[in-house]
């Protein structure tokens, strides 16, 4: 078992599904079960690799820094476990949700390719491998957004997503090519060691290209405008996957390149990340309120949460550059950011899947039509409320702790006026998000029932939602264990 198997299993699964589909036609659930099986193999491999980190893999005869290298540390494995977890849950959910669509062999094959691309991004040890898996992930997600291609909305949203995201990837590749020009290699560890010890103007140029390139997929303001179109247009399970993990892959790539390759002690990108993070969360939180479409509402909230994660990374980089004496604050901030990645993936996955249950039942995404739905669909609505409270940052649920850690790390640095300003804006944003989530819960729970005929979703759609709701609570109960994990993530990034 090696790292290579992690990306191999889903690709083999995708090829297998396409091969089977030429013999067995129109058996959607069979392909779904096959997809779950190959993801389970992947999860099994992941458990075996988990004890061996940091580990690397390369093709025989092409040792690093020459050839393709896969490398996993605790940050990579943290991300891969999120991808596999969300992949299995979403595939399980799709068995029923997508059962009325046709062409399901393509759907499940693309889903597996998406998971494979995400995994490859997280475990690649050189920047070009990262780019190749990045494009695999992007192409699979364009196709999945536009899966219902006979309607106008997915095509329009998908084309917008394709154009913006492709420009972003190419700009990021341009940044990578500048790093290559500076050091003559693409291996992440090798670039870091060959990098000149003081800052250069090319280095800052490549930072700008990398942030704005990968920032398109991470939905950082002002590159976020594809996201609120693409998430509602996609089928609900895909929205959960896009919002839960695909935008996190963008955040991962930014953090990996900035922290592991360029180094926060050499380049002052902390201020840039802080400004972008604060702008992202403020703009997105202000745009949540006018939304009537529940999935657009959740999509804007995803952008706001990316802002929080980027702010946490900004604090870490700012501290590492400006006051290396307080480096423990940088670890704290990065741990908070990583914890928020986990909480947002689980919470937003839960919200999109639960709202998928509502949409499947009443065929409308308008919040007005959803009023009072909890009287008819109690389990889905209860899980939805749990996820909303967690992301709104209501104690003692998981989302509260990650926001608390980030705000605490900001308050540690109260001698710097910038940090105080960021802390104030972030606290205001947290209160604002708590307000709109509680307002949403009030709409779906306490208003008179609009959709009288609605019935609770079947077990296949309810189980994934309930599993995620239990996970939301479990993260709080097992808080010390998860804090250990996110601490090791911060250690992997800061060295």
């Amino acid at each position, binding site marked *: 078992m090696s790292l290579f198997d992690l990306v191999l299993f889903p690709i083999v699964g995708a090829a297998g599904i396409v091969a089977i589909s030429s013999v067995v036609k129109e058996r959607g659930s069979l392909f779904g079960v096959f997809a779950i099986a190959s993801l389970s193999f992947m999860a099994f491999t992941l458990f075996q690799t988990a004890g061996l980190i940091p580990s690397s893999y390369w093709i025989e005869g092409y040792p690093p820094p020459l050839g393709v290298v896969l490398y996993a540390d605790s940050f990579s494995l943290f991300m891969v476990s999120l991808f596999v977890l969300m992949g299995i849950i979403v595939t399980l959910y799709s068995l029923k949700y997508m059962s009325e669509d046709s062409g399901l062999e393509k759907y499940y094959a693309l889903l597996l390719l998406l998971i494979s691309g995400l995994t490859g991004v997280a475990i690649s040890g050189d920047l070009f491998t990262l780019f190749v898996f990045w494009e695999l992930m992007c192409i699979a997600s364009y196709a999945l957004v536009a899966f219902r291609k006979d309607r106008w909305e997915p095509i329009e949203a998908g084309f917008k997503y394709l154009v913006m995201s492709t420009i972003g990837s190419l700009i990021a590749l341009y940044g990578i*090519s500048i790093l290559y020009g500076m050091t003559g*290699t693409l291996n992440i560890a090798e670039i870091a060691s060959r990098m000149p010890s003081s800052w250069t103007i090319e280095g800052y140029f490549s930072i700008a290209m990398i942030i704005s390139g990968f920032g398109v997929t991470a939905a950082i303001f002002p590159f976020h405008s594809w996201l609120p179109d693409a998430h509602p247009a996609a089928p609900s399970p895909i929205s959960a996957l896009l919002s839960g993990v695909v935008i996190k892959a963008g955040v991962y790539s930014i953090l990996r390149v900035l922290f592991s390759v360029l180094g926060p002690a050499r380049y002052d990108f902390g201020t840039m990340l802080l400004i972008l993070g604060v702008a992202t969360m403020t703009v997105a939180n202000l745009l949540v309120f006018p939304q009537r479409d529940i999935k657009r509402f959740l999509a804007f909230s995803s952008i706001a949460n990316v802002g929080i994660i980027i702010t946490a990374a900004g604090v870490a980089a700012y501290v590492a550059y400006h006051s290396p004496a307080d480096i423990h604050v940088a670890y704290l901030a990065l741990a908070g950011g990583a914890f928020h990645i986990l909480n947002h993936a689980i919470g937003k996955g839960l919200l999109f899947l639960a709202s998928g249950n509502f949409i499947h039942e009443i065929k409308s995404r308008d919040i007005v039509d959803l009023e009072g739905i909890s009287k008819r669909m109690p389990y889905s609505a209860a899980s939805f409320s749990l996820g909303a409270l967690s992301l709104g940052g209501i104690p003692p649920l998981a989302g509260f702790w990650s926001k608390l850690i980030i705000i605490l790390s900001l308050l540690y640095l109260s001698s710097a006026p910038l940090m105080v300003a960021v802390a104030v804006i972030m606290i205001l944003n947290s209160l604002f998000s708590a307000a709109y989530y509680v307002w949403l819960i009030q709409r779906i729970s306490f208003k008179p029932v609009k959709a009288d005929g609605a019935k609770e979703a079947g077990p296949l759609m309810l189980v994934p939602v309930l599993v995620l709701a239990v996970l939301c609570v479990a993260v709080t109960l097992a808080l010390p264990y998860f804090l250990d994990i996110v601490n090791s993530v911060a250690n992997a990034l800061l060295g």
Partner: protein
Amino acid sequence: MIYSATAMALILIGIYCIATKHNMIKIIIGIEIICAGVNLNFISLAWDGQQSDPLASSVVLVSIAIGAAIAAFALAFVMNAFKQTGSSDARKLRRLRW
């Protein structure tokens, strides 16, 4: 140096093309121009005065293949949009606003 400058010019031309053209096919051509610019930059940075680094050439070969995949995929989008709106004008796809 002149190649790097040309690469940058190509990227800017591509972005200009995407920003100003309304035909979906022309937007895709813009993407491909950016792709060519980035590839050219890789190749130009591989030259160290005596020889060219083979790593960059292999990287660019894969990158060209990826560019072709994206173009093929984008053209499939154009076909589907054409089936629905009867034109390849991106202005017809304006129903989604922020």
